[in-house]
């Protein structure tokens, strides 16, 4: 009774499609960013699972680390932009952001 690669990849696939659902349905910009985070986590799980189960290497772990760092910087910049938009337009809903010069 060992963990197989298919179960791990199924969890990652579920996270990925939930992230897509969240990106498609939400109106709030922060909630859309949360969907992006779900997708990034699914990708990281895939990297680690391929490393663990298929190849005797650690390159996937390195890719996951780089991914996490890039996610951190992306979230910092994106949330700064959202806060800036909220300060000038008083809303963070993507449907209402329709003026070019706030």
């Amino acid at each position: 009774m060992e963990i197989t690669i298919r179960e791990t990849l199924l969890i990652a696939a579920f996270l990925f499609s939930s992230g897509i659902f969240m990106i498609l349905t939400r109106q709030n910009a922060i909630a859309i960013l949360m969907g992006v985070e779900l997708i990034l986590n699914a990708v990281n799980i895939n990297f680690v699972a391929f490393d663990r189960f298929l190849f005797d290497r650690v390159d996937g772990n390195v890719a996951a680390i780089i991914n996490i760092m890039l996610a951190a910087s992306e979230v910092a910049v994106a949330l700064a932009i959202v806060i800036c938009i909220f300060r000038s337009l008083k809303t963070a809903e993507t449907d209402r952001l329709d003026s070019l010069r706030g």
Partner: protein
Amino acid sequence: MFFKVLFYLVSLGIVGLTLITALSPNIIRSVFSLLGVMIGVACLYGIMGSQYLAVIQIMIYVGGIMVLFIFAVMFTSRIQNVEITNRSLGKVQAGIISLAVFLMLVFVILYFPFSQENMGEHQSVERLGKVISTDYLPFLLGIGIILLVSLVGAITIARPKKGED
């Protein structure tokens, strides 16, 4: 056997919390269940034997990114977001699209002939550190520069302008 049971428990938690994250109309509840998902993913990394990634996930995602998310949510939005659906794309269509993606991925995963070898028992932190500091050193330096630039840029964007409140 123990790891198998643990894996199933953690997976159940991840699936439930992801459903709450994706479907809850209350954005605070959504953020906190996303925090639970991150902790569950860290547990998955630990179960799969890469301890360093589990620690990194806890430190950066749970300690950094999610705190930033909670801060931004408290700062900007109405908490009770009554209409969760987009105006251009309804819940049903989005559900169909994401279900189609999920079924496609499940099909590929179930029918792809993986060679089930279960290698990588010795994925130690030591090995990862050696690989990072020799083969992937340029990537590490580039990531450092990107982090510095993006943090400075974030501060510059989010700082209030002069004369504004």
